[in-house]
């Protein structure tokens, strides 16, 4: 049977595939080889690989024969190797004893994986620098989960931005949660599109569900108000609670481009006025007719 890697020469594999150790060093070697979650690799003082483990093979796709003697930069992204980031990793490990990084690394087949890498400078008992130990962990799944959560958070925000037509000529946007620039941009595009499609002169933006307003959020609102005006509609901003009104004045924010009201009911009344609709109770109408 071929050598599994440097250092396993004396370890023997029996019929059940179990490794049998003949010395303490072998015990350690078997331990390293049996850890599948971490690729544990030894590098010489220049960063060339001197050992390889089954976990490293599983993670990176190379067999021991393919990589022992090669520089560890073959796992780096070409741009990282070119920019000197890879060399700097070793320098940091020498200077500080340890280097840790989380980032993209490359497998044999060229695919990328998100890795946690720790490089430790190895010194012998005299303090002579002998090389490096490199431990790599594949965090792709965690990274994917993080990305998924980020994506879902965005989807939730999108769902939180509903644009509905409440009357012929009136579009209602109940805003829930904080406004960031990306969300504002998206809201603006969708709102303008909807206003022109439905030929609506009024956009009712209700901020009852917006917890607090900071300068940036206000700026985003002002931009939306302006854009709505350019296309020929106007914004009626509702849900301006006392706390929000106080914040707006203290921050010196000028929302004069829009009509503002504290309640949606009051805002709807303004909207009706703009599109020239008179709402009256039937009894009141009857009385008016009676006169």
């Amino acid at each position, binding site marked *: 049977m071929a050598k599994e890697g440097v250092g396993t020469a004396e370890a023997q594999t029996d019929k059940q595939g179990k490794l049998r150790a003949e010395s303490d060093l072998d015990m350690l070697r078997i331990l390293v080889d049996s850890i599948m979650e971490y690729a544990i690799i030894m590098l010489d003082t220049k960063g060339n690989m001197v050992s390889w483990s089954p976990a490293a093979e599983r993670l990176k796709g190379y067999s021991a024969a393919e990589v022992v003697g090669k520089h560890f930069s073959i796992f780096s992204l070409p741009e990282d190797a070119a920019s000197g980031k890879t060399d700097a990793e070793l320098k940091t490990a020498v200077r500080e004893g340890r280097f840790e990084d989380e980032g993209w690394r490359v497998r044999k087949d060229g695919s990328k994986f998100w890795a946690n890498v720790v490089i430790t400078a190895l010194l012998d008992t005299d303090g002579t620098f002998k090389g490096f130990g490199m431990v790599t962990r594949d965090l792709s799944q965690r990274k994917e989960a993080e990305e998924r959560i980020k994506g879902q958070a965005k989807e939730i925000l999108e769902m939180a931005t509903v644009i509905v037509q409440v009357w012929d000529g009136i579009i209602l946007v109940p805003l829930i949660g904080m406004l960031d620039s990306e969300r504002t941009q998206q809201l603006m*595009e969708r709102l*303008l599109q909807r206003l022109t499609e439905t030929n609506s002169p009024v956009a009712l933006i209700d901020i009852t569900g917006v917890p607090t307003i900071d300068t940036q959020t206000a700026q985003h609102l002002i931009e939306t108000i302006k*854009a709505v005006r*350019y296309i020929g509609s106007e914004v009626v901003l509702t849900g301006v609670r006392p706390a929000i009104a106080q914040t707006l004045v203290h921050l010196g924010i000028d929302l004069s481009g829009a009509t503002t009201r504290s309640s949606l009911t009051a805002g709807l009344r303004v909207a009706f006025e703009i599109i020239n609709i008179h709402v009256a109770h039937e009894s009141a109408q009857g009385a008016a007719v009676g006169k």
Partner: protein
Amino acid sequence: MIEGIAVLKLRDVLLVTMPADPDDSTVSALQSRTLDAMEQHDVKGLILDLSKVEILDSYFARTVAETAKMVTLMGGETLIAGMRPSVAITATELNVTLGATRTVLTLDRALDLAGNISRKKSVQKTRSAL
């Protein structure tokens, strides 16, 4: 003679329609021809139809804003009609200020409003005559 801009006198307003992607000379022509027409005809104001316009640059945006101010100085009112959403977003990015210029969704609505303006003015005239 620059093609693409149509300056029409419609009852007592001027109707100016801009092409999809006007170059700088077309934009300059917009201003001079509009102001000339304002002087020539006794009109109450200007309807600037931007419904065909797809691209807005800073020069175009500034010229539109300036022209509206100049029309005001000459005693007219400007209505901007039919600006597209994409153009409106560019306008916010360019921080275009429209001042007192009114905007409307469509040319139809602009004509409705223009009718109101002239009616109001004629009412005022009648009143002052009395």
